[in-house]
């Protein structure tokens, strides 16, 4: 460790301390409040098992919302990402589009959900719109970045052959940038399930509606059932994503000979 690093670490610690004081971080309040957490946790272990069914259906609705939102978002993102790629589109198209996409990513989907509840009313549809919008912002960015990173050689070679722009996009740009798409979609779906689980807090459908209401009325045992269902679902989706990734994406990127470790 050289002195320069020590200085840097010291500075970071100092900044954290000053900022903590500024926003009112209070370790004593935390220590004093800890027993409350014990009470909540104890109540949470008293599952009220007649709620498993409701929780299951609420989770199903959540997954459906996340799925629709992810697919809609991806479908809309694909053409948008082409218009937003600097190596394909004109400045007058990509510059405003990128700003717009950045704006959709600036706010978490729960804020968009509030907006859409105002527009289309309470319920899952508002949630789907929020998830769709957020997915558009996110996937478009990932896609235009991978379009901008593609190998320039085939672009040059096919331009010399005399391909039109549309043919270039269809035969060079998409095949060269698509390999990452499946992995991006899986990641996005995983993320969207977790996002959708809390959209119910603002009345935009999904399992979050139950969680927030039971917590509000101190029914931790009921809330715990719903939270546990979310946890299990997310773990399952995570596990399935890994399997899909291993099976299709590893192979596509490194050829057939990759051995997927089985345990």
């Amino acid at each position, binding site marked *: 460790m050289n002195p320069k690093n020590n200085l840097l670490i010291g500075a970071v610690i100092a900044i954290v301390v000053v900022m903590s004081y500024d926003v009112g971080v209070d370790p004593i309040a935390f220590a004093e409040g800890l027993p409350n957490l014990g009470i909540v946790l104890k109540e949470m272990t008293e599952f009220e098992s007649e709620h498993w069914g409701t929780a299951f259906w609420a989770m199903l609705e959540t997954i459906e919302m996340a799925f629709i939102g992810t697919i809609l978002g991806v479908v809309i993102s694909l053409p948008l990402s082409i218009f937003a790629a600097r190596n394909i589109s004109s400045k007058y198209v990509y510059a405003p589009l990128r700003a717009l996409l950045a704006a959709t990513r600036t706010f978490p989907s729960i804020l968009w959900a509030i907006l859409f509840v105002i527009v289309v009313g309470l319920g899952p549809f508002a949630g789907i719109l929020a998830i769709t919008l957020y997915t558009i912002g996110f996937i478009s960015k990932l896609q235009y970045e991978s379009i901008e990173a593609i190998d320039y*050689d*085939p672009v*040059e070679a*096919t331009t010399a*052959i005399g391909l039109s722009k549309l*043919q270039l996009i269809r*035969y*060079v740009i998409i*095949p060269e940038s698509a390999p990452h798409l499946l992995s991006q979609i899986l990641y996005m779906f995983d993320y969207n399930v977790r996002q959708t689980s809390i959209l119910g807090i603002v009345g935009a459908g999904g399992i979050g509606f139950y969680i927030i209401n039971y917590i509000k009325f101190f029914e931790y045992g009921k809330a715990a059932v719903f939270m546990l269902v979310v946890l299990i679902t997310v773990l399952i989706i995570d596990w399935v994503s890994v399997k899909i990734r291993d099976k299709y994406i590893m192979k596509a990127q490194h050829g*057939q000979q990759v051995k997927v470790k089985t345990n």
Partner: protein
Amino acid sequence: MVTINTASFSSIATLSVIQMRNVSASYDSKSFVLKNVSMNVKRGSNYAIVGASGSGKSTLLKLMNGMMIPSDGVVLYNYQKPDLKNKQYRKSISKIGYIPQTLGLVKNSSVLDNVMIGGLPRLNSINSFFKNFPKEELQHAHDVLKLVGLDEKSNRKVHMLSGGEKRRVAIARALMQKPDILLADEIVSELDAVTAREIMDVIRDAQKKFNLTAIMIHHDMNLALEYANRVAVIKEGDKVLEIGVEGDKIIDFQTGDMSQKEILEMYNES
């Protein structure tokens, strides 16, 4: 003009495919990569271009297919000035079969998809978007794949092929263009001697079959002499072994004109 053995212009077969007149090329508008180069590529000729690394060989080919605009002088392809923005011209360059030094294959696509790219300028937008290829295009793709020896591997992804096989795909794509001239940039330079000759034989067969004019850049003078009937040497610097206008960097000779020993001596001097 470079050529001294000016053949008679009496038959259409001797007409120029590509003409370059006093062409200079620059990437930074300060220094020139090529200066005052003239060349006349006659229909049916089989050129090899050799020269030291960085002497401007690739640049010369890019000038010929319009990928690069000369800073001075004119390049004509079938007596037309290149203009990639012009749709009519794009159609006409689609008949310049071009294999760049890096091959420019779409690695995540299949062999067949890569080959079909060569025929896309003949297809309309809708058909090409939905990969709705007419029967005769598929037949032609099948024929050229057979000619390069890859018909068994047409569904294989390009990134899974060997170096020699990738070159065969690039040749097939160029042939799919139904070219009247083939420009190939060091297509065998990175291959071992045996594979290099296999690939050159494939090209020779294709040239015969489709009656192709060819300009091929070579790293290896021996290959150039073996497969071409005219060789142009691009020389660095001011020392001009001149055949043509002043300032020419290109020496052009018929392979039969000098003995192999003389040529290699001259080449090594340069």
